[in-house]
Each structure stands twice: as C-alpha cells, then as structure tokens.
C-alpha cells in the first residue's frame, strides 16, 4: 500500500517537475519571481474559535532589467494535513437504505482550497491545469481501487460526492475572486479558515501566470494548533485516557450531587 502511494507520489512529482521546467524554459528571457507574506503563520484554536480569515500579501518582482507584464494571474492552492477517508454509497435493499459499496480515498488533503483572481479556465489551458493539479477537478485524489491506488476521472460519482461533502464544511473550496490585485504587481488573497478545520501543518502553494503560462511559484506554510484550555483537554484525553475518564466520571457525580443539594426542598 505504501509502495503504491510512494510510486504515485513520485510519478506526480516527476510530472510536476517536467511541467515546471517546460513552462519556465519557455520564458527564460524575461523572468519574474514572487514574494509573499501571510498575515499569520500560526492559528491557535481556543474556546471561542469559530473560524477566521487569513490574508496573504504578495508582490511580483521582475528580474533586473526586465519589465512588468501587462497583467498577471495568481492561483493559491492551500492544503491541510493528509488523511484517508471512506466514501460510502447507499442503495435500497429489501426496502431499507443501506451502505452497499465504498471507496477509500488514500492520503488526500483534509483541507483543499484553490484561490484565484479569475476563473481558472481563463488563467491556463485545461491541459496545463491538469498537469499542474490546479483546481478541485484537477487535484490528485487517489482512491484505492482493487489492488491499485489511482485518481479517477473527474466526474467519477465517488469523487464528486467526496468533494461536495467536504465542501459543505468549507474544507474543499474553489474561489475565483479571492485574489485581488491592489496594484498591477501587488496582490492580496483572503484565505478562509473554516470552524471545522483539522489541526496540523498546512502548505500554501502560490503560482504566478501570465498569458496562460506559468512564470514563477513559491510556497509558504501555516500551522493550526489547539491552544490553552482546548489543548490541555485534548492532550489529557489522548495521553492519560484512564485518568481523564475517571475525572470526567467524578465530575458527573459531583454535578449530580450539587444539583440535588441546590434543589433540595425538604
């Protein structure tokens, strides 16, 4: 299983590398680079956390001697820690609805958001989008199918259902207006952090396009952790289960006893 996943990851890296080299190779005469800054590299989940919005600022810098182009496009792909999911489908059997078949999505991002300044299809050709894994339709979501692990066609019903259910919680989103250019070479991206966000390490991949070709890319990271009391409880539950359980049970008895004393009438 791990070998399959590794082979898959390796092949996607190769594709990705080849794509990068091809696109960059075409434009060596005039090259840009992008610098970005995230408003906050660490999101702390405390007791009043109900989601928030981060802001990513970036600037396009032409190489010395080169000039800025007329227009740029920026696509930000943010991904959360990788996890595996079962997607199940129900069907009617003897009058009742039961899960009849399921697929396993192996090591897919728990959070996947694609933010751009206009619709993806106007930024690059469908082939390039596919090759660079840009957009929910094009991001590799490997499934275990028989003995193999592979991504399916984009309209595979299990894949569509998985993306749409993750989207209901704001975990898988695609926003073609989240990126705005403040000046021709400075942009601002609103990165939504929904309330049900999983904790862990996040990657933000920023790609710069112009006239349909990839010019430059950069990466930045983000950490989402529980803080304060929330962290204390989560750690206690994980590391000291028995003690935590006994404490909770005692708390229950204490609460019950206090109520009966407070409400005693006789």
């Amino acid at each position, binding site marked *: 299983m791990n070998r399959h996943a590794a082979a898959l990851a390796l092949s996607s890296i190769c594709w990705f590398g080849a794509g990068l080299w091809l696109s960059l190779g075409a434009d060596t005469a005039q090259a840009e680079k992008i610098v970005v800054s995230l408003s906050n590299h660490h999101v702390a989940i405390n007791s009043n956390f109900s989601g928030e919005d981060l802001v990513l600022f970036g600037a396009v810098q032409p190489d010395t001697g080169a000039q800025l182009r007329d227009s740029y496009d920026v696509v930000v792909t943010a991904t959360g820690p990788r996890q*595996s999911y*079962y*997607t*199940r489908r129900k069907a009617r059997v003897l009058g009742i609805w039961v899960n009849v078949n399921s697929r396993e999505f192996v090591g897919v991002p728990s959070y996947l958001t694609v933010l751009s300044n206009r619709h993806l299809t106007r930024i690059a050709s469908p082939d390039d989008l596919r090759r660079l894994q840009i957009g929910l339709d094009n991001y590799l979501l490997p499934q275990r199918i028989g003995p193999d692990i592979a991504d399916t066609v984009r309209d595979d019903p299990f894949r569509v259902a998985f993306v749409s259910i993750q989207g209901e919680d704001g975990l898988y989103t695609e926003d073609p207006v989240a990126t705005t250019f403040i000046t021709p070479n400075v942009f601002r991206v609103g990165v939504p952090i929904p309330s049900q966000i999983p904790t862990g390490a996040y990657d933000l991949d920023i790609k710069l396009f112009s006239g349909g070709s990839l010019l430059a890319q950069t990466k930045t990271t983000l950490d989402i952790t529980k803080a304060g009391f929330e962290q204390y409880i989560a750690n206690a539950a994980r590391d000291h289960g028995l003690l*935590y*359980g006994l404490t*909770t*049970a005692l708390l229950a008895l204490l609460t019950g006893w206090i109520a009966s004393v407070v409400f005693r009438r006789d």
Partner: protein
Amino acid sequence: MQIYLPIADLPLNVFLLFGMGLAVGFISGMFGIGGGFLMTPLLIFIGVPPAVSVASVASHIAASSFSGAIAYWRKRALDVALALMLLGGGILGTAAGVWLFTKLRALGQLDLMIGLSYVTLLSAVGGLMVYEGAGAILRTRRGLSPVQRRPGSHVWFHGLPLKMRFKRSKIYVSAIPVWSIGFLIGFIGAIMGIGGGFLLVPMLIYLLRVPTATVIGTSMVLTLVTMASATVMHAATNHQVDAVLAFILMVGGVIGAQFGARTGQKMRGERLRLLLGVLVLAVGLRFAYALVIEPDNLYSIRLLEGGL
C-alpha cells in the same frame, strides 16, 4: 454564544447544548431512564461525530441519573437490594456485549445492525407500553382497578429456586430472573450504546411486578453505575469523551432531572407508562423512517483513523 469543543473539533452554541441537556434531563428524571436513546441521535444530528456523541453522552447520563437517584433515595423510592442484584447481571452482560460488538465490527455493517436493533427494540417496547398504558387508563375510566393484580397468576419463573424477598419493592422472586434481566440490559446497552433504562423499567414492572414507585429510583442506580463505568472505558480505550461537551450537557441534565423527578412523582403510574411508551415508539418510528426514506445524499464520508 459559541464554544469550541476540544475533542469533537467543532464550535457549537452553549445555550443549544444546555437546552438539550435540560430537556433530556427532564425526561430522564421523570421516567427514570438515562435518555441516551434521545441524546445520542440529537448530538449526531447537530454535527457531533457519532463516536464522540456516544462516549460523551455516557457521562451526561451518569450525572443526571445520580442527581435523580439522590432525589428518589430521599423519598425512599429506591430498592438498593434489587439494584445490587441487577448490577451483578448487568456487569456480566456488558462484558458479553462489548465482546460481541468487537466481533460485529470486524464483520462490517455494524451501523445497519445498530439502526435495525433501534427500530425493532424501540418500536416493540414502545408499542407494548402504549397498548398496556392505554388499556390501564381505559379500565380506570370504567371505574375498575388500574392494575390487573391477578392474585393467583403465577408465571413459570415464580417457581424457580433461590427466592429472595425485596422488602422495599414488596416482591418475593427468584434471583435468577433478576440476574437475567440485568444481564440482558447490560448486553443490549453495550451493543446499542445506550443505558437501557427504557427497557429495564417495563421489564421490572411487567415481569417482576415491581411497583412503579420504586422502579424508577432503582433503574436510576443501575443506569448510574453502567454509564459511569462506560465513561471511564470509552475514555481509556478510544479517547472520544469530550469533557467540555459532557459538562455543558451535565449541568443542563441535572437541573432538568430534578424537575423531571418531581413531575414524575406527581403523575399516576399508568399515565407515566403511556407517555414513556409514546416517546419510545416515536423515536423507534423516526429511526424506521430514516431507514426507509431515500436519504438526501446517498453518499457519506468517514475519516479513517490513523490516516495513511
């Protein structure tokens, strides 16, 4: 006011949770049941993961049944001897139930098994209780005794050995059916993830002929012990008990249980039984409806523990 729940991993409204605790606590105190069969589906409905719901509800039930048990203890409406005998069977039954639960999970389709047993059990028990309760009320209307005490009627298990006298409940029965009932409740409770109070109450009333007055307090003691130990077991094995969620539910639950216990004592036994029957039947039918009606989304996703 939203509060982030550290184990369930989502923010929920404190007042909504408190209100749910209050409402279920009231029902729990009134009928002497844990209320798990109401609270667990409610929590899942508002988005709490099922594993966290089942585990956290256990401690909520422990709190409200403890405060209820104290209230009944003060009114001397509690049979300690009977409760201890039931517990003996209950512990054995829980162990057997946990063992079967693990076996069933290895075979798959456990969710369907749980759904079907909810439907069958709740509808059957609720239906019987409604039938009996309505019959008793009709007899009272006609001026007859509400309870059909047939002095000569001996069920077969009244002939069993190891007879014991339970003074508070004014019954004289063999220990064997008492242990068997305890075992069955523990067994079903462990498989379905519920306290089993709604099954215990009618069994004590109809099979052992325990008076309604002592049934509720006694049932609460059994619920208290099984749910407190379930909390510890859930926390130690699958780490899914959310103490923050449980605490909010508990505070609402114990307050509700106090008022519920008083309301329950004021009501006549047969009316109380009819009401509980209607409630159990309604939940059972709701589960049946969910199984039969085409779901909004045929697909569902579930996180695989441990990731890749």
